[in-house]
C-alpha cells in the first residue's frame, strides 16, 4: 500500500498513514470537509489549542497579494475607458465615460468579430492540444510505472533530457521542418507540437507508482480483464488528481502559447488570442496606424477570465496532485 517516505531521510514511515495524508492522496475523498478537517487537525497543537494568528505574517501576505493583484486591477480599471480617455486619464483609477460594456461589444465585433474567431481557435488548440497531451502523458506515465519492458530505461533518459531542452530552441527548426511539409499556417502547426508534455508524463508516472497498487492490477488480470480495460476502469480513477493537474497545466500552457503560433501562422484567421492581441497592439504603429488600446486591454481581460475560472473551480484536484508530484520528485 502507500508507504510514507520521510522527505529528508528517505526512511520509510509507518504503514498506517495519518488521516491527513490519506485524504490528500485519496481521490475518492468526496470530502472537502474531510480535507478541511485534516488541515485543521494539522494546525492544532498537541494540547488542542489553535495557534494564534499572526498579524505580521498576514501583513506580509497582503503585500504579496497587492503585488499580484495590482496589474490585474490596472487591466480591470482600464478596460472601462474609451481609447481617448485611456490616453488622457490616470492609469490606476477610473476616468472618463464608463465604457466597459461598449468596449466588450467592440472587442467582440471589431473586424467582423475576429476576436471570437481567435477565441474559437484557442479553444480548439486547447481541447485537442492540451487534451491530447494529457491523454498521451497519462497513458505513457501509467505504462512506465506499471510495466517492465525492453527499452524502458532509454525512454526514461530521453524524457528526462526532453524536460531539459528549451522549447524555444525547438521552435525555429520545427518551423522549418513544417514548412517543408506545408504544415505552416494550419492548426496542425500549433496542435502537433503541443502534444508532448514530458513533465506531465513524469508527474503521472510518479503518482501512479504509489496510487495504483500492483495487487489490484494483478487481481484484475487474474479475472481475465484486458490491459486497456484495466486502465480505463481502474487506473484512471485512481490517477484522477494527477490527471487533472497535468490537464490544468497543459491547458494553461496551450492557452498562453505565444511564440510558436507567432512564427507558424501568417493568416490571422488561425491566430490564438495571444497572437491576435499582440497584432492589435502593433496596429498602433506606422503609416496606417489605428491604435485600439482600449480593445487590447478589454481583450486581455476577456482572455484571462476563463483560465481564472477554471483554476478556481478545480482547486481541490490540482493541489493534491501537485502535492504528490513534488514530494516524489
Amino acid at each position, binding site marked *: 500500500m502507500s508507504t*510514507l517516505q520521510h522527505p*529528508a531521510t528517505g526512511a520509510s514511515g509507518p504503514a498506517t498513514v*495519518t488521516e491527513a495524508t490519506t485524504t490528500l492522496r485519496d481521490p475518492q475523498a468526496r470530502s472537502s470537509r474531510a480535507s478541511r478537517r485534516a488541515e485543521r487537525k494539522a494546525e492544532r497543537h498537541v494540547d488542542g489549542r489553535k495557534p494564534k494568528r*499572526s498579524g505580521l505574517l498576514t501583513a506580509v501576505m497582503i503585500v504579496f497579494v497587492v503585488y499580484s493583484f495590482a496589474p490585474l486591477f490596472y487591466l480591470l480599471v482600464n478596460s472601462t475607458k474609451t481609447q481617448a480617455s485611456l490616453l488622457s486619464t490616470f*492609469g490606476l483609477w477610473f476616468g472618463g465615460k464608463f465604457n466597459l460594456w461598449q468596449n466588450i461589444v467592440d472587442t467582440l465585433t471589431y473586424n467582423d468579430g475576429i476576436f471570437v474567431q481567435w477565441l474559437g481557435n484557442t479553444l480548439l488548440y486547447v481541447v485537442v492540444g492540451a487534451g491530447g497531451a494529457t491523454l498521451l502523458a497519462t497513458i505513457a506515465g501509467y*505504462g512506465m510505472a506499471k510495466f517492465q519492458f525492453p527499452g524502458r530505461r532509454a525512454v526514461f533518459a530521453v524524457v528526462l533530457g526532453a524536460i531539459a531542452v*528549451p522549447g524555444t530552441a525547438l521552435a*525555429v*527548426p520545427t518551423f522549418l521542418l513544417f514548412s517543408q511539409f506545408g504544415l505552416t499556417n494550419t492548426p496542425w502547426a500549433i496542435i502537433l507540437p503541443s502534444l508532448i508534455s514530458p513533465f506531465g508524463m513524469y508527474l503521472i508516472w510518479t503518482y501512479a507508482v504509489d496510487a495504483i497498487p500492483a495487487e489490484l492490477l494483478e487481481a484484475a488480470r487474474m479475472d481475465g480483464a484486458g490491459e486497456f480495460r484495466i486502465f480505463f476502469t481502474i487506473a484512471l480513477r485512481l490517477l484522477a488528481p494527477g490527471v487533472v493537474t497535468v490537464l490544468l497545466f497543459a491547458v494553461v500552457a496551450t492557452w498562453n502559447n505565444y511564440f510558436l503560433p507567432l512564427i507558424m501562422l501568417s493568416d490571422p484567421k488561425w491566430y490564438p488570442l495571444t497572437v491576435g492581441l499582440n497584432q492589435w497592439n502593433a496596429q498602433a504603429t506606422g503609416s496606417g496606424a489605428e491604435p485600439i488600446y482600449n480593445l487590447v486591454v478589454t481583450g486581455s481581460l476577456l482572455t484571462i477570465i476563463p*483560465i481564472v475560472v477554471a483554476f478556481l473551480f478545480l482547486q481541490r484536484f490540482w493541489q493534491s496532485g501537485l502535492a504528490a508530484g513534488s514530494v516524489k520528485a
Partner: protein
Amino acid sequence: MSTLEARAAGATAPAVPPRRRARPRGRYTGWLFVGPFVVVLVAMLIVPIGYALWLSLFRDQLIGGNQFVWFANYVQLFQDAKFWSGLGRVAVFLVVQVPIMLGLALVAALALDSARLWGTSFFRIAVFLPYAVPGVVAALIWGFIYGNQFGLTGTANHALGIDLLQPFSPDWVLTSIGNVVTWEFLGYNMLIFYAALRTVPGELYEAAELDGAGPMRTVFSIKLPALRGPMVIATIFSIIGSFQLFNEPNLLKTLAPNVIGSAFTPNMYAYSLSFSGQQFNYSATVAIVMGVITAVIAYVVQVRGTREENR
C-alpha cells in the same frame, strides 16, 4: 465486473480464487501504453533537434546558395560577441532573479503553511493568479505601467519630483524584466512548495512540539528539509526558464528598442537571425549550443541537488 469496481473503491476484498487462467502479459505490453507518447516525442522533439543539427552544418546565402560548411558556424559562434554578451546577460539574470523569486515563494509558502493567517485560501489563490495570465498580457500591462510619461512610474516620478524610476534605462531594464518574470511565476513556485509542505505528516510536528521546539525551530528542522526536493525541481525549471528568456524582453522591445537589442538574450538572437536576417543555419547553431549549455547546467544542478538530498 462489479468485483473489480468494488476493489477500486478502496475496500480490501478477501482473496478470491481465480476463476479463469490469467491472460499472459507480453514483454512488450508496456509499449502499447508508452508507444504513442514516444512516437510524438520523437516526431516533435528528436526530429527537430536532428534537423537543427543538420542545418547548422550548412550555410545558405543570398548570393551563392546552400553550401556544406562543416563546423564553420560553430567557429563563428564561438567568436560572436553578440552571442556571448547575450549569454552573459541571462546568466546574470539567472543568478539574481531566481534566488529572489524562489526566496519570496518560500516565504509565502511558509506563511501559508504556518496556519497563522486570516484567510489562507484566499491568499493562496490570489498569489497564484498571475500564473494564469498569458505572457503577452503580462508584458502589455507591465509595459503600460512602466511607461515613462504617463505610466505608473512616470506618474510616481512626477509626484515625487524625481527622475529616479527609469524602468527602461540600460541599468534598470534587466531588473524591470526580472520583475515581470517574478510576478508571473511567484505564485506557481509558492504553490509547489506549499503543496510539499502539506504532505509533511502531522505527527512530526506533534513530536517536535513535545520536544519543546518553537516555531522557528520547526521551520528549520522540519519544513525546510521537507522542501529540499521541490527546491531542486523549482531551481532547475527556473534555470531552464532563465536561459530560454524570450517572451518578456521580446514583447517589451517595442517600448525600448535601443536598450533591448535584437540579441538581448540568446533566444532573441536566434529569433532575429532567423526572421530578420533569414540566416536559418546560424540560428540553428545558436539554438543547439544554447540547448546543450542549458541541459548541462540543469543536469549538474539536479545531480548536486539529489546528492544533497540523499546525504
